[in-house]
């Protein structure tokens, strides 16, 4: 490429630079496209929801005739979603945490068994939440359960489990081996090292993983579609059906009444706000908690 006389070379350089600026233009255009469409989503939801965004939306249950456009709110769905998500995340964490500890402290990294478990987690991660919903429904029939908070919560926990385990696994892998070896050399057992050093060291990662899983659970409609049911009241027992925000949005949007549709937009804005809060909390918490990490 460099053996030609100078003027020819500069001509080729010009085409090379032209190619460069062409592709750079393409990149800038697509980046703008992405940013614009993403901002557009937020803007349209906010704009559409403004007329129906009243305080009564979050302080009241649907009254009689709510679905015909009369008074009421979606307190039932907000509380219901939180009940489902907190329960599901606790359940998923109760399985994921010991699983990941076992995977990282009791199994050799490259062993067949560890690879099998990680592979199963990858497979589970890829299973669509609608299939978990169907599976949850099959469990329900088998145990003669009705659509309820319990069934919804279990199904959402199944959806969250691979997300949580993989995120935990990734953060635990990053703990330096020196740190573990140092505690072993002081005579600590694997269990002591795992719980008092490794988990403490990965605590910020754990918090972000939990919040990420909560965000996914909160927005997942397909998993609760057959399993959680729907109700206009506030759920007080594990065996009662429960309302959830994504389904509230979905049902209200399908209504022929414009007032009800507007409330779907308002409910969407509320759900977006919750997701935003979770994502902000995860950012600031992980920053604050990381101060205590040994580097």
């Amino acid at each position, binding site marked *: 490429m*460099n053996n030609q006389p100078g003027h020819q070379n500069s001509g080729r350089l010009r085409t090379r*630079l032209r190619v*460069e600026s062409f*592709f*750079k233009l393409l*990149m*800038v255009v*697509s*980046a703008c496209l*992405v940013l614009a*469409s*993403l901002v557009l*989503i937020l803007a*349209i*939801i906010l704009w559409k929801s403004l007329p129906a965004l009243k305080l009564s939306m979050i302080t009241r249950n649907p009254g009689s005739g709510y679905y015909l456009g009369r008074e009421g709110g979606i307190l039932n769905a907000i509380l219901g979603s939180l009940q489902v998500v907190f329960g599901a995340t606790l359940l998923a964490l109760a399985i994921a945490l*010991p*699983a990941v*500890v*076992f995977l990282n402290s*009791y*199994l*050799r990294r490259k*062993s*067949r*068994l*560890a690879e099998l*478990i990680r592979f*199963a987690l*990858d*497979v589970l991660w*890829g*299973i*669509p*939440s*609608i*299939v978990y919903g*169907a*599976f949850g*429904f*099959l469990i329900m029939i088998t145990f003669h359960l009705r659509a309820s908070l319990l069934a919804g919560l279990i199904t959402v926990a199944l959806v969250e*489990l691979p997300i949580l385990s993989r995120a935990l696994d990734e953060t635990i892998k990053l703990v330096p081996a020196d740190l573990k070896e140092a505690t072993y050399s002081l005579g600590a*057992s*694997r*269990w002591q090292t*795992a719980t008092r050093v490794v988990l403490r060291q990965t605590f910020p990662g754990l918090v972000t993983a939990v919040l990420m899983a909560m*965000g*996914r659970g909160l*927005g997942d*409609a*397909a998993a609760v*579609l057959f399993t959680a049911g729907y109700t206009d009241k506030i759920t007080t027992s594990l065996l009662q059906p429960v309302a959830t925000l994504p389904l509230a*949005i*979905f049902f209200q949007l399908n209504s022929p009444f414009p007032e009800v549709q507007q409330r779907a*937009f308002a409910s*969407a804005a509320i*759900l*977006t706000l919750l*997701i935003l809060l979770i*994502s902000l909390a995860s*950012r600031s918490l992980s920053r604050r908690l990381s101060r205590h990490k040994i580097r």
Partner: protein
Amino acid sequence: MAFYRLSRRDRVPGLATAPFAFFPVALAAVIFLALLAKSWPLLSLKSLSSLIFSTTWLPSRGHFGLWPFVLGTLWVTITAFLLAVPVSILTSLYLSEYAPARVRRVFQPVLDLLAGMPSVIYGMWGVLVVVPLVGKYLAPVFGHQSSGYSILAASLVLALMILPTIISVSVEVLNSVPLSLKEAALSLGATRFEVIRYVVMKKSFPGILAACGLGLSRAFGETIAVLMVVGNVPLIPRSLLSPAYPLPALLANNYGEMMSIPGYESALNLAALLLLVIVVGFSLLARWYLVRISRRSG
């Protein structure tokens, strides 16, 4: 051996945590077997290929051809994938190689937020913006009549949904390319784009492929957003502007209430099983390919 030799005080916690670690393996197997068992009544009557490749879906007359749904899934997912991949690779290249720090600081939280956005919200946006856009403006350009509820609308919504995931993973991959490699290429007189093409892309190809795989597997199973804009008509789709009925939408619309017609329950469980097999099959394929690439490059 897979296990370390455990000291006595480690045996109890080791034994106590082991079942939790095997839970994922058992769960994956149980899901597969449960769906297989539930679809068995139909599978024992008709051959699998006649169920999958038959095009008539008339549950009330006992015709359970799943081909329109399989095709609907493939059309929507693959179109979305083709729309999303070039845009997201270009965007992540811009973000990692050209963009000033300020732009990156704006992009990152927006991408995070949008990756976590619930699908019902994307679906709502699709109904509000994309469906009218396709029906009123895009379809007439191509000389078609369309309500707007179409494969194209679903693919656009779906592409937008998987963009943030693909971009954030790709940016991470691109940022991990060693600076010394890029500097070496620059010092030999390469332009920045040539560095991207011959060094950065080459080095990060497997990682970007993995990012696209993540996006693809998310796209396959996406239910609510697609269901809201795709039209849900169980016919073989003829063009991008015709409606379709992907497998997840079929399940979402019918799964809860399938008791009355004989064979219907089995057919829907078979649809769930089929979806599971397609998604897992694709991810296994991607995995196998990645392993092969990483072996070849040493």
